[in-house]
């Protein structure tokens, strides 16, 4: 409050329909507000957020020459922007607004205590008024936004987000840890419920992402460090040593030769054989390898952990291409972007830890992902579905649904539903019946969750094709050591009878979990996670693509289990949200910065290391050492303000006098805080 101005506060109390008015006395709170020092007008309305409600604020500001507004209603998260707008439309600086949350923090929790809730609302209003009397004009700071974005993780979600951003004219770095983009979807054979070939619909996107002039692929690359804030993220990338150069890299490295053209001569001669993780370890690869023929970029990679440095590959590659460098080391690179989209996807849980189902103990128990590779024409068996123990064609196959999902026993088990395993198990059952005449699939389930568009119809179709559904969660799987057949035991809960079915093969629909390094990524980008470990969206309904950190957005399974249609939809949402600040070119930061009161600052510098965001520095000014705040970096956390021994740091909008007035108002019943 400017010193020469007398406080003139208006208080507005919202009914929120019956949300508030049903649990406390609006009249009493309003009458009480009128008695508070500095309050010149108090009013109430059914919905303060509605146009007539807002007009009440606007009109009162003019009529009563107000300089502070208090609205007692819901949460600032919901409607602070609304009321700030009304405040400024009335002609006041929008920061001369204070909110008392008498709904979420009062009427909703004290629904059955009318008198108590009314008293508490009076306290809340009194506290808000105490602050409103001391509010001051503040100017939001705007910072320029870098016209570039980064997407971390190049599965179908990350690729879609990158393509959308690039098509909207934004330079986009698509960072992928593996040597190729594509993610899990490139491991799938067909996709439910339409059964189109996964690679066929994915490779065009991979090619588009690879060729787009505004997308810079950063494969075999990890995020090393993140600094900055919305509009100005400075991200350090670690380009892992992949042992080969492509054309442009040759030029950059000043090497003679054309670089890797993907001919694969090197892999022919490489003597080291390792399991290919893309094929779930069911097919070999060399120490110099590509995952599969459609990789993007088509460039070989050396796994230096298994490479014996015999040099055979380098020799055969020859001086013309000269693509191989066996002594390559990791390189760090810094890029600047305005916004970031995280799309890091998922893994299966280590389902072998649920020992009752025998994964990794019995050869003929596999996971859904292994099934995808075994049934895929480009997979290790050329699409001939076989069982691992003897290569025989399985004629009876059991599908164990909810394997580790919807399970509250802890350990590797997950309490949530993994959301796509019902549907892909239906798909697998269909594929078996289609490829192997006479093959009988059994689906052991608790509920079939076929919630998407055309999903229930797909369920109908698979049942009609002859799949048997047994409603019972599988209690255990046991192997006949001679035939290697596997016995699936459960109760048919609909018959109320225990049942054991001898199968040739068992497929576990294993639960999914975040990637092992999701936690590291999360901390670097300063976002939250939900209790199940997935990245936390800003709001589950109203802001599902954003995070609570400005400028960071989410796409795909990294935010929670979802299938391809939902992943792509969220990716497009995230790209659209991320493009807004980039296209606007500048963002406004809330002016809750720390400020150095230079007269009081002793220049001791003790605050500098306290700031978690590296926003503080000591500088020379008029021959005196003082602290300086880089406002764009300051998040207004208040650490330094509370710390400074000389009280030289002032937190805007949360000044010591404002906070003391609020405490006094609460503890002294309104007698404090008066000047």
């Amino acid at each position, binding site marked *: 409050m400017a010193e020469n101005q007398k406080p003139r506060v208006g208080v507005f109390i919202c009914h929120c329909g019956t949300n508030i008015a049903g649990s406390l006395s609006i009249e009493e709170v309003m009458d009480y507000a009128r008695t508070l020092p500095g309050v010149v007008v108090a009013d109430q309305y059914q919905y303060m957020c509605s146009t007539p409600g807002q007009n009440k604020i606007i009109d009162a500001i003019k009529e009563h020459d107000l300089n502070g507004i208090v609205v007692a209603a819901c949460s600032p998260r919901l409607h602070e922007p609304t009321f700030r707008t009304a405040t400024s439309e009335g002609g006041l600086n929008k920061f001369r607004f204070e909110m008392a949350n008498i709904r979420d923090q009062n009427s909703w929790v004290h629904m059955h205590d009318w008198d108590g809730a009314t008293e508490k609302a009076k306290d809340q209003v009194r506290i808000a008024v105490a602050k409103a009397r001391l509010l001051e004009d503040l100017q939001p700071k705007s910072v320029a936004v870098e016209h570039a974005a980064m997407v971390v993780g190049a599965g179908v979600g990350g690729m879609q987000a990158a393509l959308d951003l690039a098509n909207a004219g934004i330079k986009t770095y698509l960072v992928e840890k593996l040597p190729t983009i594509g993610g899990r979807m490139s491991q799938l054979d067909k996709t439910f419920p339409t059964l189109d070939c996964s690679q066929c619909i994915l490779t065009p996107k991979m090619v588009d992402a690879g060729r787009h002039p505004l997308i810079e692929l950063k494969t075999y690359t990890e995020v090393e460090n993140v600094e900055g804030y919305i509009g100005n993220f400075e991200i350090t990338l670690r380009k892992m040593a992949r042992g080969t150069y492509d054309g442009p890299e040759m030029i950059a490295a000043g090497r003679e030769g054309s670089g890797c053209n993907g001919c694969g001569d090197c892999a022919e001669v490489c003597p080291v054989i390792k399991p290919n993780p893309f094929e779930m370890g069911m097919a070999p690869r060399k120490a110099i390898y590509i995952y599969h023929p459609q990789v993007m970029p088509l460039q070989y990679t050396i796994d230096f952990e298994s490479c014996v440095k015999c040099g055979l590959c380098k020799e055969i590659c020859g001086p013309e291409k000269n693509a191989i460098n066996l002594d390559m080391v990791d390189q760090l690179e810094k890029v600047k972007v305005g916004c970031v989209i995280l799309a890091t996807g998922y893994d299966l849980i280590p389902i072998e830890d649920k020992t009752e189902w025998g994964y990794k103990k019995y050869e003929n128990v596999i996971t859904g992902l292994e099934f995808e590779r075994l049934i895929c024409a480009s997979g290790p068996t050329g699409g001939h579905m076989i069982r691992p123990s003897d290569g025989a064609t399985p004629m009876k196959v059991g599908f164990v649904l909810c394997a580790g999902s919807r399970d509250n026993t802890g350990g590797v088990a997950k309490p949530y539903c993994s959301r796509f395993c019902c549907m892909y198990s239906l798909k697998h059952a269909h594929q078996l019946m289609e490829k192997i005449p006479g093959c009988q699939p059994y689906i052991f389930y608790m509920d079939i969750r076929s919630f998407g568009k055309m999903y229930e119809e797909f369920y109908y179709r698979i049942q009609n094709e002859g799949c048997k559904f047994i409603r*019972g*969660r599988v209690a255990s799987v046991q192997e006949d050591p001679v035939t290697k057949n596997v016995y699936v*035991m459960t109760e048919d809960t609909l018959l109320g009878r225990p049942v054991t079915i001898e199968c040739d093969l068992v497929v576990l629909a294993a639960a999914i979990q975040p990637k092992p390094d999701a936690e590291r990524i999360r901390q670097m980008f300063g976002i939250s996670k939900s209790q199940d470990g997935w990245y936390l969206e800003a709001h589950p309904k109203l802001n599902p693509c954003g995070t609570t950190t400005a400028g960071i957005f989410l796409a795909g399974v990294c935010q929670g289990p979802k299938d391809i249609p939902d992943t792509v939809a969220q990716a497009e949402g995230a790209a659209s949200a991320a493009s807004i600040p980039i296209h606007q070119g500048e963002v406004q930061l809330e002016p809750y910065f720390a400020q150095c009161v230079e007269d009081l600052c002793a220049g001791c510098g003790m605050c500098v290391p306290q700031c978690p965001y590296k926003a503080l520095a000591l500088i020379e000014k008029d021959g005196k050492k003082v602290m300086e705040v880089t406002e764009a970096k300051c998040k207004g956390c208040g650490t330094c303000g509370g710390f400074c021994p000389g009280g030289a740091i002032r937190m805007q909008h949360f000044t010591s006098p404002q906070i003391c007035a609020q405490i006094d108002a609460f503890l002294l019943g309104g007698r404090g805080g008066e000047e």
Partner: protein
Amino acid sequence: MAVEKNYGNSELENKLRDRYYYTSDSSKDFSDEVRKISGTISHMCYQCGTCTGSCPSAPRSSYRIRVFMRRAVLGLEDEALMDPDLWLCTTCYSCTDRCPRDIAPTDVIMAMRNLAFRKDIGPRNFLKTVQLIYSSGHGVPNNDVNRAAREKLGLPRDPPTTHSYPEFMPGIRKIIDHYGLKEQADKLLSEE
């Protein structure tokens, strides 16, 4: 409540018995009591069937642990306590090991047995076992066939239990008497 039918043919009547679930059959108190005594979240069963699928008793009898869990959820007191299957659990704890909701169905059965016994329900073999423990300290006391077998195996004729140390019997009886178990078993058996 179930509707009475009378066809004058007990077999037919049983077949045509009204099996409608009337919400008035449910007792919330029973649900709560089972939850309290069992110390497990018996109201959280989602009927997956893992327990029955794990149960060694299920394939050999009409006993379905899952059905008792349903009765616990719904509070179907009479149906649970009067069902002779209640006594077919071997307390092997296989179901407790595997229940994905982390419930201990075994303890639910124990709780129901407790409640049944309070209502003077208890099968003969259980009551006899009480008497045997009271008299010998063993549910299955040693006998001459066993003794001969033990001798053949080079073991002492009696195991190192109350059979060899009868001086501990008074202690065991004191525990049983404290709960009035023996008295109750005697009474129920004499009423037969």
